[in-house]
């Protein structure tokens, strides 16, 4: 049984048919990258998993249970974390409050806080600062930290390197590696070499369907089956 399984998922925004039958499976403790050009449905796939945009057809199974049509907070409560694109902080909450709000009431907040502040010492220094006043890289760290607390079994990470300086991207990659020791990761990433470096397997999307998939080992952007879909 796969940890996450999407079967023939069709998702619409209004009348636009975005996902046109996506099939994918994610096994426990692997890192899976979703790649493809802009607008092929990568983010929509993540939103469909979380039921933020519920699919009209097909099923999403998590830990073997059908979660299609459940409310987002129920799906999240089963152990899925989300690091949304553009980082989307709770800007007017402080760094510490951002972490606190992500820790479920039954979990040990002190332990969780220590865990993320150990991982991201920068965040501890700014713990009393409102998140909107952090730099882009710090915000991304906080977004990842927030996804990591609360015992999630699966973390959906959307465009973690977007808009960040190369040096900061390295830190983010380190953080994601660190996170992958604890949870399974599904990663949407535009930066192809980075995605191949980080992930174990990939799914290549085009026009709302999976067109290629496989292990990332040895796959380069020059690969014919990749280049056809990634170059403009």
């Amino acid at each position, binding site marked *: 049984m796969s940890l996450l399984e999407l079967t023939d998922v069709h998702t619409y925004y209004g009348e636009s048919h975005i996902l046109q039958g996506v099939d994918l499976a994610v096994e426990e403790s692997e890192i899976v990258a979703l790649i493809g050009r802009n607008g092929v449905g990568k983010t929509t796939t993540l939103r469909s998993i979380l039921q*933020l945009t519920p699919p009209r057809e097909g099923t999403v199974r998590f830990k073997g249970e059908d979660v299609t049509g459940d409310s987002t*907070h129920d799906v999240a409560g089963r152990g899925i*974390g989300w690091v*949304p694109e553009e980082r989307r*902080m*709770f800007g007017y*909450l402080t760094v510490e409050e951002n972490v606190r*709000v992500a820790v479920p009431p039954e979990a040990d907040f002190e332990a969780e806080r220590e865990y993320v502040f150990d991982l991201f010492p920068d965040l*501890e220094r700014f713990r*009393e600062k409102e998140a909107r006043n952090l730099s882009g890289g710090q915000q991304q760290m906080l977004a990842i930290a927030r996804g990591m607390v609360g015992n999630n079994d699966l973390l959906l990470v959307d465009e973690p390197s977007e808009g960040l300086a190369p040096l900061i991207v390295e830190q983010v990659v380190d953080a994601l590696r660190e996170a992958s020791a604890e949870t399974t990761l599904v990663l949407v990433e535009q930066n192809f070499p980075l995605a191949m470096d980080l992930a174990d397997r990939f799914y290549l999307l085009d026009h709302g369907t999976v067109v290629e998939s496989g292990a990332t080992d040895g796959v380069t952007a020059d690969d014919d089956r990749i280049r056809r879909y990634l170059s403009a």
Partner: protein
Amino acid sequence: MDTVTDTTAAHARDDEHWLREYAREHVPHLLVIALFAVYPPIYGLLLRTPLSAEANAFLPGTTFLIAMLFLGLFAMSFDFISGYTGYLSFGHAAFYGVGAYFIVLVANGDVPGIPAGTPFVITMIVGGLLAFGLALAIGAVSFRLSGVYFAMITLGFAQVAYELVRNWNYVAVNPQDGPTLSGPTPEIGIPYVDSVSIALGRLAGDSFENVLGLGIDISATLTSYYAIGAVVLLSYFAMQRLIHSPFGRVMIAIRENEERAAAIGYNVFWYKMVAFGFSAFFAAIAGALFAAFSRGASPDETFYFLVTADALIVTIVGGIGTLAGPFFGTAFYEWLEDILSSEQGGLAPYLRGILPDGVLTADIAGITIADLINTVVDGRAPLFLGIVFVLFVLFVPNGLLGSVRDRLGNTVGKYVGGRLERYRR
């Protein structure tokens, strides 16, 4: 920012007694409370000095102070839902109206099952719970929408309530004017204990002479001011407590990014519902205080949509999402209204008194200065407030308190607390 001293200060705070830290962060609160407490006697003294004309013209009188209190509470309750979850409650007047009408109807013995003599404090709270329930009912439908659609549908509900009470013979003989309170004067205090209950009202309320032998007289109006002020203060601290609780953090998370809050695992629908209920509760308390002090309520002063609009305006002026800001916005509004009306002193009579006759009768392009004062100044508060509102939206979009907080980089309480901490060392 100096991060090194920041962290040492943070560690020092960890070791400190929580009570001392709490007190230090409430220094600004204490100052504001003290200001409102000593203002009336100082105002009274000023009226006996040579500056009396100026004081009368430029400082708010007691009637305006009381309006400041209950309207301020209403504005804060509006900010509680609108500023902290981001859902603009354009129908908030309905909850204010429920609180106001309920205490009048109970006092008049018109509510089956609740005897006319039930203490005001109890009916006020029951009215608040009623508003809480009404908010859940309205929210169950309205929270399926967001943004401008939420604002419009709540406005729609409030207008339905407005039309209902305006035409419902049950609430008053002449429902368009609303009911008047015919029973005994409402009292604030501990129910059923006479010695700790204070009667409200402009003329009929309690008054105290020669308090503590200090030669200070407290008139009936002023007594009401302090009693109502106490309820408003309690309500403020209750709302402040909620906002700083885990519940309040989720409210802010919903405002900042509702999808993200849901994806963390919060049932955002119920968080919004309960927040809406609390804000309705305090709106009803404000309405009850208004009706108790004015000994009656009319549909146009309670359920009408312009009542909500006033709350919206003072919230923008004071700072949306700051809780205390709307109260200061209300104070500013009432102060402006006092200056520009001649109900209690004001600018127009002051100018007429101070300017020599020659100036007043001087003719400029066909009208005299005296006419100009009558036309432009006297009773023109709404006009000037409109201008002030436009200027605020353009130049101070975060409002009074919001701008101060942005400047300090923190809430005023935390900032002042931090400063005091450094002086202590």
